[in-house]
């Protein structure tokens, strides 16, 4: 079956993301503790819990699914909550009113969302934030415009993973981790890792 990006796929995608996050939660919290304030895991878990509540209303399109995801994140604390919330909001708005969505729309949404995160948070690539995983994913999705969603998301996941990995050797210049300076070197950025997890979950969810 050729995967299409529709309501069902979006739901599978979010479920897969939640499941993957849960396996990584302790690690993500440890990373935030090493270079931040140690609440990243709790913040993301809270957001994903609210996602489940909002998805209970059974939104009828992929666009509506991500709108619900956005609201859930916008209703969560921490720095990651509102930034992810606005990221998902742009993603939702780029998708069509009726399913399915195509890769061009997906790429457009992630580009818009990433631009919003950068505008709001002021972070550039190399500042050791979620942006370090988002920006390469935008590029990969744009390059994958000719392909199907599953292929495009696999490319995005690979790019995001590389971007997240690159944060290890950086010193943070944005967010709470920026206060600790050299101490953060050698610590992966949990926000960037979460972005990579999200795209990898998408690639798996659309695989059949």
């Amino acid at each position, binding site marked *: 079956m050729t995967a299409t990006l529709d309501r069902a796929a979006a739901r599978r995608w979010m479920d897969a993301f939640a499941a993957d996050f849960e396996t990584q939660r302790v690690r993500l919290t440890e990373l935030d503790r090493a270079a931040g304030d140690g609440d990243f895991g709790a913040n993301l878990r809270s957001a994903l819990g609210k996602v489940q509540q909002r998805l209970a209303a059974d939104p009828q399109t992929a666009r509506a699914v991500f709108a619900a995801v956005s*609201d859930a994140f*916008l*209703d*969560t*604390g*921490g*720095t990651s*909550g*509102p*930034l992810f*919330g*606005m990221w998902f*909001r742009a993603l939702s708005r780029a998708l069509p009113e009726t399913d399915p969505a195509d890769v061009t729309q997906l790429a457009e949404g992630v580009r818009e969302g990433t631009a919003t995160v950068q505008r*709001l*948070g002021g972070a550039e690539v190399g500042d050791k934030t979620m942006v370090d995983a988002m920006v390469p994913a935008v590029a990969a999705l744009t390059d994958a415009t000719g392909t199907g969603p599953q292929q495009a998301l696999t490319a995005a996941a690979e790019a995001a993973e590389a971007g997240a990995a690159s944060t290890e050797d950086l010193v943070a210049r944005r967010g709470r981790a920026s206060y600790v300076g050299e101490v953060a070197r050698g610590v992966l950025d949990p926000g960037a890792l979460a972005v990579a997890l999200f795209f990898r979950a998408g690639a798996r969810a659309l695989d059949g």
Partner: protein
Amino acid sequence: MSVKKFLNDPDDLVVEALEGLVTASAGRLRLHRDPLWLESAAADADRRVTLVSGGGSGHEPLHSGFVGPGMLDAAVPGAVFASPTALQVVAAVRGVDRGAGVLLIVKNYTGDVLNFQIAAEIAAEEGIEVETVLVDDDLASESDDGPGRRGTAATVVVEKVCGAAAARGLPLAEVAELGRRVAAGARSMAVALEGAVHPGEDVRSFDLAADEVEHGVGIHGERGIDRRPMAGAHELVGALTEPLVAALGLAEGDRAVVVVNGLGSTHLLELYVVFREVAALLEARGIGLARSLVGPYVTALDMAGASVTLVRADDELLGLWDDAVTTTALTWETR
């Protein structure tokens, strides 16, 4: 064993306190849930600018105590010392807008700024006119880089003046402009005699020796600029007030609104002693004491300490200050 406080589950503290506040208000306040925000139930003129403020809890009476005619239309409470979410703020903005636009009054903290900015953008997309006033009065946190001065007790003055301007029917741009002018002319400085204890925790935010004070603290239990020897009220208050006078460039003949604010557990007797020192210092410099507030208005949970705020005053600001206000924590008839 956590430090003793009146609470049930610490996670329920904020909501239970709001429920208590609303019950005590006897219909003057209304609580919205999912998302959580507090609204003034007073029927008021149509098509006038409305005011929304908010921030972390633990600073009461700020902001919930200032909701009512002549001041805020809504307050959006976060968890203790944590920003409310963007969605809470959006809900409040949608709820109070009467077609003439909404003013957001935001204390300068990264989380608050981010969430209120997002809310402003979402509301604007929905066709609601929104302006934001950032309050950044805390002189102790002034630096060349970084997130800028924190917002502290001047917030009360901004909320009062903007509330009066909105009640008079001024348009959004003017109300916002007034708020920015008040904020630009306001500076504060605080000293802690003891740190605060977060509900459910068992240690103070910082520990001070019996002969030390923490000079230049904020309102979230964070450390201040430096640790100084304990001294008499005259000396402690001088060290807070002199830099404010200098920073605002207040000179003979100028006038100021003074807020002497208790940080939580400092007694009213002491706050009046502090105020007496501030008033004497201003008088000695020929600076007019235009108006004043003395009490716990912007607290840092149960921190022992006080802040001094000076706000450069002019006739327009004072006229608005004197307009009637009817909230839980601040009430007067037109003066």
